[in-house]
């Protein structure tokens, strides 16, 4: 525990009346991490982030930022943290540059830096051409980017982004994701919340999964998989009839041997896929990337005509559904 975490919570709890929104949450976000904070709607993500941003008082528990306990000095915290709320509003009758200028003034930024900072940020979030537009006239995606820019005004070390991609079209989502990668590359610690795991899984260095106010899993994606012994779903298409294809896969799995005392893969399941040639199969695979490669090598060595070999994209969804209780996940 010698490493100082950018953010650490100790038994962080928040009650709304009798409802436990956040239940003894112990979160550790290392410096420079891009932390995906994932959970179904109503799991307590927003409540947690608001507590971290100093906007909501914890019922109990502690928040530590950069190794310092935040007790009453929220104002110091606010210089370090940039917060983008999930639902955000824009002021009426305000231009885009005025919007950023206002927040820059709130952070008591000197006049000279304010001017350049506004332009730099607009450039960063790709809104330079909208500098003199009315904030209300922006599209949803632009407003979302503007809101992200507002959280960057004071160049914070830590960014708390509450569902930054919600309500965006796929193109805007990709843009937002690129933006986050760029910010991560700048060395900022970023906590991004989402209710969609795959959206974050690709870029997150760390993931925390929250369900009903409790942290059910955290760590890198691989660690979580490992901890849960959860296999990944491999999809294969072998240009052969069903029995031959099944046999080939069974043999290859058998040749791979046991992983952690268990068979490396489950019994292959035939997936109906009438649009293509051959037989489509799925196996749940417990091994790591080396073992996946070995499996493919065994298949190829046995002369199986593998036309397609990939990890099914909904594997993360399955993981997510497995982690969160059935029925509550959306």
């Amino acid at each position: 525990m010698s490493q100082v975490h950018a953010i650490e919570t100790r038994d962080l709890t928040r009650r709304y009346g009798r409802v436990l929104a956040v239940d003894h949450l112990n979160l550790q976000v290392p410096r420079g991490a891009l932390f995906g904070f994932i959970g179904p709607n109503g799991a307590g993500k927003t409540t947690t982030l608001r507590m971290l941003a100093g906007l909501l008082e914890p019922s109990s528990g502690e928040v530590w930022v950069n190794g310092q306990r935040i007790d009453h000095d929220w104002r110091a915290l606010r210089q370090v943290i940039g917060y983008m709320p999930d639902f955000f509003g824009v002021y009426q009758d305000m231009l885009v540059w005025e919007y950023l200028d206002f927040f820059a003034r709130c952070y008591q930024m000197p006049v000279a830096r304010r001017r350049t900072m506004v332009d730099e940020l607009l450039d960063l979030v790709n809104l330079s051409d909208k500098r003199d537009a009315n904030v209300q006239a922006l599209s949803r995606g632009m407003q979302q980017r503007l809101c992200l820019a507002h959280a960057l005004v004071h160049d914070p070390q830590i960014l708390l982004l509450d569902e930054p991609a919600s309500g965006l079209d796929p193109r805007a989502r990709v843009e937002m994701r690129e933006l986050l990668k760029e910010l991560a590359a700048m060395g900022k610690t970023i906590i991004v919340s989402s209710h969609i795991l795959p959206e974050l899984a690709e870029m997150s260095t760390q993931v925390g999964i929250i369900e009903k106010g409790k942290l059910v899993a955290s760590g890198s994606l691989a660690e979580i998989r490992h901890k849960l012994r959860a296999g990944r779903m491999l999809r294969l298409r072998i240009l052969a009839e069903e029995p031959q294809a099944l046999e080939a896969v069974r043999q290859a799995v058998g040749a791979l041997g046991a992983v952690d005392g268990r068979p490396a893969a489950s019994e292959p399941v035939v997936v109906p896929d009438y649009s293509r040639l051959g037989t489509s199969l799925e196996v749940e695979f417990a091994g790591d990337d080396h073992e996946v490669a070995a499996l493919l090598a065994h298949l190829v060595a046995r002369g199986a005509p593998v036309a397609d070999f990939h990890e099914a994209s909904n594997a993360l969804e399955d993981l997510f559904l497995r982690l969160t209780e059935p029925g509550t996940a959306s």
Partner: protein
Amino acid sequence: MKRPLSLNPVLIKELRGRMRGPRAYLFLSGTLVLLGLAGYGLYRLALFSAQSFFGGGVPQGALIGQSVFVGLVFIALVVICAIAPSLTAGAISGEHERKTYDMLMATPLRSSSVLLGKLAVSLSYAALILIAAVPMVSLSYVFGGVATIDMLQALLLLVGFALTFSTIGLFFSALFRRTTPAVLASYTVLAIFVFGTVFVYGIVGTINQQSPPSWILALNPFSAIASALVNPVSSSPTVFSIGGGFSGPVFGVLWLISGASYDPATLALPRPLWHLTVGIYAWLTIALYLVSTQLVKPVRRFRLRRRAWAMVALFVAGSIVAALMLYGPWSPERILAWLRWNLSTPSNLIANGKFDAPLESAWQVSTESEHDYESGGEVTPVTEDGRTLVRFSRTGEGHAETRITQSIDRAVPADGWLQVRVTLRVQSDNLYLCGIFGSECPLMIKLNYEDVAGRPHEWMLGLNTETVPLDFVAYPETCTTCERPRPFVPVPPKEWYTYDSPNILESISPDALPRRIVSITLAAGGHTYETEVAEVALLVREGRPPDSGDAFGGFLTPTPAPIGPFIINRAIQVLPPLPPTPAPTATPIS
């Protein structure tokens, strides 16, 4: 990092938003049109009244000018009451409703900055309207009768009210976090201030069948303005029906709601109501602002650290002290008087007042007698029970006076304290009271003094044994031949008695107040008498005991005040003023 000179970000943001677009223009134009129409209407009304009730030599121009001025001020107040709460009632709740509250609160901006910014915007908006209305109001200069100071006072009061109403709106906005309830609550409070107070005032007056106490109206901004602008005496319907028959279109109502009452005999006025209103509003504004700073905070609301608690305690104590000082018995004048009184020590102007030293060392003995063949009496030092006393004795038929005099020649403070103390025993006295002229008491104390103008005066106090005369009507109860006599002081016969006089300086009318005491004389007068004096002292002291005056800062006891020539308090005097207020007569010592 702290940049004290930087402008409040909230103020800049709000100004940018609020002043953009046609709304501000339209509103300002509308208000000015309203004021203009009202001004013209007031002018027509005042002109009509002045023409129909012309009389009393009151110049019409001034009355028209004053009518227009006061009317416009009141319409401006209506506008302020109508808009001030709405300018701020959405200030904090709007941030919640627009979902911008979290973003704002995630910045290091202090809650006080947010509130001050919002307040400043509201005030600047109100000030914009008021300043735009100033040229309109100054049209009343064309007619005359309005002083610049009146205009400034009205402007300051209106801005102050706008601040208070804005703070009320802001408080409810922060409390409810939703605009609709905040607006409702703000206007409800305002309605209580404006209509509720008048209603209670009326009810109390009806029940008691007399003028209700004016402090009921203290929360009413209209009453406060009326009491500030409208002279309660000269605008009262009674005075006008006698004086000129003109009361203008508005002044009857204004006089009524200003809560003013005056003593018709002395024309004495209580302290004007707006003094109280301004104090209460200031307190309310500060208190609501302080509570709001806590309500606005996202976390640690009302969790104050030690320093903040000290501030709260200071505020509470400060309000109490301020209230006592402004409206209670701790007025600065009274505190200063108390200090002066308690820091001063009485000094005795008389040497050898106990007669320990030989009599002649400080006193001159003199006698007079009506008949040459009779003695004027004797002054004899006698030692009794270890102390020396002086005996004034005489036996005879005709009038005589036996006296000892000491020259003093000492200055006395006109606003100070001067007291005579004498310990005496009247052994015998054969006259009723103090004789037929009241000038023959068994002991008389006479002070010879110079007044401020250097004129000589004599102040006399007689002490007697109050033997009741058969034909008592013939015997006066005060000296009839003296310049400044006092009612006689009764003393018991044949026993020692110490008399302490009240403050002599308060018993002398202001035009004859002493500046310098020349001499003191102790005299026994009559036919046959024997009076003994063991001690005499003339005590002088800086200051007066601070027990006099109104314990409610002048709100209860009217003090005589000059009445204005017209309706407005400080109107320019275009006519010789009404007969001056009778000078207050000195209250006699009872």
